[in-house]
């Protein structure tokens, strides 16, 4: 009996093959399969749900144009997420320029203005906690550069390997590690400063 994961992978390969042959119905299924992760990755980089939706939609439109050139011997996700992440980084750069022009630097506000600050994590209901974390992450990650944000998202949230991230971003693995170190330092400082109840230990 074919396991669920294996069967899903096979379905995905078959779908991709049909898409490469120009089958738009299969492409619709592929979009349904990859949509949530594409929006989530874009959201973690651009920090705005509507911008993330735009980025993901643009990525799929580009994918349709590019999928014929996809080499089926390569893993699909890193190849596709290269498009998503690069579009998201470009979008984030545009947004940063806009926000610096309109509001000036200094995205982090005081803890008093965050009503969710002070809620504890252990034992909390996970979906509710996720909602709070989303707000905290968006505020703290506003202090990161676009590539730092992409690296942190891919490594710590999506669980991608360093080698894969280097390939997606077109940079060296050592550069990925540097960006990750800087991103972690900035986020830890933000967490300690604005949400100390989440930051019990800074020995690492």
């Amino acid at each position, binding site marked *: 009996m074919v396991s669920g994961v294996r069967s899903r992978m096979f379905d995905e390969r078959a779908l991709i093959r049909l898409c490469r042959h120009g089958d738009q119905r299969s492409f619709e299924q592929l979009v349904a399969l990859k949509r949530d992760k594409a929006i989530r990755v874009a959201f973690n980089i651009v920090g705005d749900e509507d911008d993330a939706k735009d980025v993901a939609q643009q990525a799929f439109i580009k994918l349709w144009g590019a999928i014929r050139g996809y080499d089926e011997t390569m893993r699909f996700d890193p190849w596709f997420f290269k498009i998503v992440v690069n579009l998201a980084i470009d979008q984030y750069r545009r947004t940063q320029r806009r926000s610096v022009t309109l509001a000036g630097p200094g995205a982090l506000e005081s803890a008093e203005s965050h009503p969710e600050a002070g809620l504890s994590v252990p034992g909390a209901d996970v979906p509710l906690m996720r909602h709070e974390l989303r707000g905290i992450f968006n505020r703290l990650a506003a202090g990161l550069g676009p590539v730092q944000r992409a690296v942190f998202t891919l490594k710590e949230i*999506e*669980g991608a390997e360093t080698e894969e991230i280097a390939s997606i971003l077109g940079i060296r693995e050592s550069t990925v590690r540097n960006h990750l170190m800087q991103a972690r330092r900035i986020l830890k400082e933000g967490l300690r400063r604005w949400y100390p109840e989440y930051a019990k230990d800074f020995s690492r």
Partner: protein
Amino acid sequence: MTDKTACDRFERSLDAYLGDALASREREAARRHASSCPKCLARLTLQDPLQIFLPLSAETPSSRVTDGFWDTVRAGIERERAAGKREAVPMHPVRPGRLAAFAGRGFTPIAIAASLLVMVLAAYLAAVAPAQFAPLDRSASRAGIARAAAAPLPRVSVVAAGNPLPQTLEHVRTDDARDVQIYSMTWLDQDASSGHDPNQVTELILIVDAGLKL
């Protein structure tokens, strides 16, 4: 497997997880467990506070974002198609900013020199090379068509508007100098009653004279 077993297993692999020493499958299992188990997540964040963001990996977009998602993608595809833009996107998309930076570093003369070299090479090939690309053997044979049918995928895809069948079309000149069109239809047979493997991708190739239209 009970939750307690999963928690015990997570606790045993905690140090290896934090040290990035787990194999990718075990690492993914640990991530999945911690992102949905508040107790183990709390245990993890005591060691590394930034793991607090792990549950974001299981976040799903709101219906406000997903509603009409495909319609917009499809409209974008139609726009691109109307503009004749179905070309490949490079694996490492070059951003305009990077190109400008490249030109700004004094690389323009190199680009001009490279262009000149390409033009000279093209002129040389136009004058000398045709003999090396002479027409194929004109001896008529069915093997010529068979060879054309064996041309490697992918072929040029043409999907007629409103036509549910994907059609792949390629124009080939066979060994016996006949112009033929190769149509390929590919589908996923998910009808269990047909007795076929439900995941089997089937491809039908039709070869016809170039003048004939399907």
